[in-house]
């Protein structure tokens, strides 16, 4: 078990997501940067389904009440165990009463904390991912007690030699497929979309990222249909919204692009004022030029 001394700016328990309930309007949720979360779980020899903590912009402080082994991955946040700096992306032994604290983030914005065998928090609709009105709380609060099983043995199934790929932190290109309504765009719109870059607005969170630039848009809204994490919508005002893990299950704006799973992880580490661009790929992952 650990106690939350300071949850930081926005932190939540996440696993791979809540599947099978879209037909009653329940969002998928799950880790924004699944690549980072998977890495941390892998390092500890956990199941990829194990729940981790997701921190946004670092600055959290946690006190461990049981021994375990942890791995911190994702955005670099100058983690300290008690007073000493500790490394990211590697197993760290934890004793009772150890205090883990994060500084500010320097590369990326979302940091993940995995514990041996995962967090054992409440399960709602087959997932531990926190989401408003589904789990008791939508995020981690100060003084929350988060359960995990104490672990005192040495790590036997460690994958500590796992190759760490940090290239997505400097990558600004988002590989994406054509969305269902892409074909409705004019040649000029396609040009703008795929050959210019966009800035992320200050409206960027787990539900979606709004971009700043406007693309002149005469498309009429579509009759409400499915949307997915990674769906790129074009609003009537010409603003682009990229839906993320907590997005609704249906929407009425034309779906012009669909981010690859990897691109969702890339975008999840970006924030306000950063530049991104879309790179069209086909379903065999080769680029397409327009």
């Amino acid at each position, binding site marked *: 078990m650990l106690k939350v001394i300071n949850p930081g700016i926005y932190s939540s328990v996440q696993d791979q997501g809540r*599947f*099978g*309930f*879209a*037909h*009653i*309007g*329940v*969002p998928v949720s799950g880790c924004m940067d699944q690549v980072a979360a998977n890495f941390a779980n892998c390092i500890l020899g956990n199941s990829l389904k194990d729940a981790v903590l997701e921190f946004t912009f670092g600055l959290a402080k946690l006190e461990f009440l049981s021994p375990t082994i942890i791995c911190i991955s994702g955005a670099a946040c100058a983690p300290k165990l008690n007073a000493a700096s500790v490394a990211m992306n590697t197993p760290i032994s934890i004793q009772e009463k150890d205090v883990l604290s994060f500084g500010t983030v320097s590369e990326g914005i979302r940091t993940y904390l995995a514990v041996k065998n995962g967090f054992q928090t409440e399960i*709602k*609709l087959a997932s531990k991912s926190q989401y408003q*009105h*589904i789990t008791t709380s939508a995020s981690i609060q100060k003084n929350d007690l988060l359960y995990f099983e104490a672990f005192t043995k040495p790590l036997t199934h460690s994958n500590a030699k796992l190759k760490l790929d940090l290239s997505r932190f400097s990558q600004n290109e988002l590989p994406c*497929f054509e*969305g*269902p309504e892409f074909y409705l765009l004019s040649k000029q719109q396609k040009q703008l979309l795929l050959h210019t870059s966009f800035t992320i607005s200050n409206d960027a969170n787990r539900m979606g990222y709004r971009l700043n630039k406007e693309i002149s848009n005469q498309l009429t809204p*579509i*009759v*409400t*249909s*499915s949307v*997915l994490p*990674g*769906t790129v919508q074009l609003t009537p005002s010409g603003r682009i919204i990229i839906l993320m893990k907590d997005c*609704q*299950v*249906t929407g009425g704006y034309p*779906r012009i692009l*669909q*981010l*690859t*799973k990897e691109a969702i992880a890339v975008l999840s580490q970006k924030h306000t004022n950063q530049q991104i661009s879309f790179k069209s790929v086909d*379903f065999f992952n080769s680029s397409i030029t327009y």
Partner: protein
Amino acid sequence: MQFNKFITYKQFGNQAVLIAWPVKIDEVILADILQFKTKIHIAFQGEIQDLIVGYNSLTLIFKEDIIDFNSIKEKLQQLYHQVTNVTPQENYIWEIPVCYDVTFGIDLKEMSTNLRLSEQEIIHIHSSTLYTVFFIGFLPGFLYLGGLDKRLHFDRKPKPRLNVAKGTVAIGGKQTGIYPQQSAGGWNCIGKTPISFFDINKELPCFAKAGDKIKFTPISKKEFDAISAKVVHRKFKLIKSVIHA
């Protein structure tokens, strides 16, 4: 199965297939979508993570990345044609008590003035229609209902309210709906139901499903309070009747 020539299949991201019917809000299309959905559910059992129904679409989300879209498309096309003796899902008419008292129906007055209908007429028209549940989306437990009488079509508010209470029954443009939880919203509030459309602690958090129908029954403020108390203690039983095809 009459839409065969008009149905399109598209890969939608790494893991999904979007099946689209003609762009039209129509109960015949809904019935066709639901029939196909039942067949897909059986034929692809174990491979599918989620099936999302829209007005004119069905989205299949697979558990794994799609490797060969064309073979899935062929399988789906054959499946669409296949005559099976699959029992169609059972659909219900749900009677939903609604209190149209002015304490909840805070926009009734404005609608009455603009639509040139008395508040009583609005309530009467709203509660004498049988609405069809096309699908559930937007928020957990938010029903997309078809069938709002043209006389009650009324534009959304230019500026959404920050807090619309859970259970609020409202009209937005050509649609009517129930807010399943407190949220921001720009629809015009005409009443409130004590019934919960999304209860995370129930095995089936949302009782309604695509293809069901909803009938609103007007109740007084006193009845509203009585039903609310029963709902809290889980002693209220909704009235439902089976729809015979």
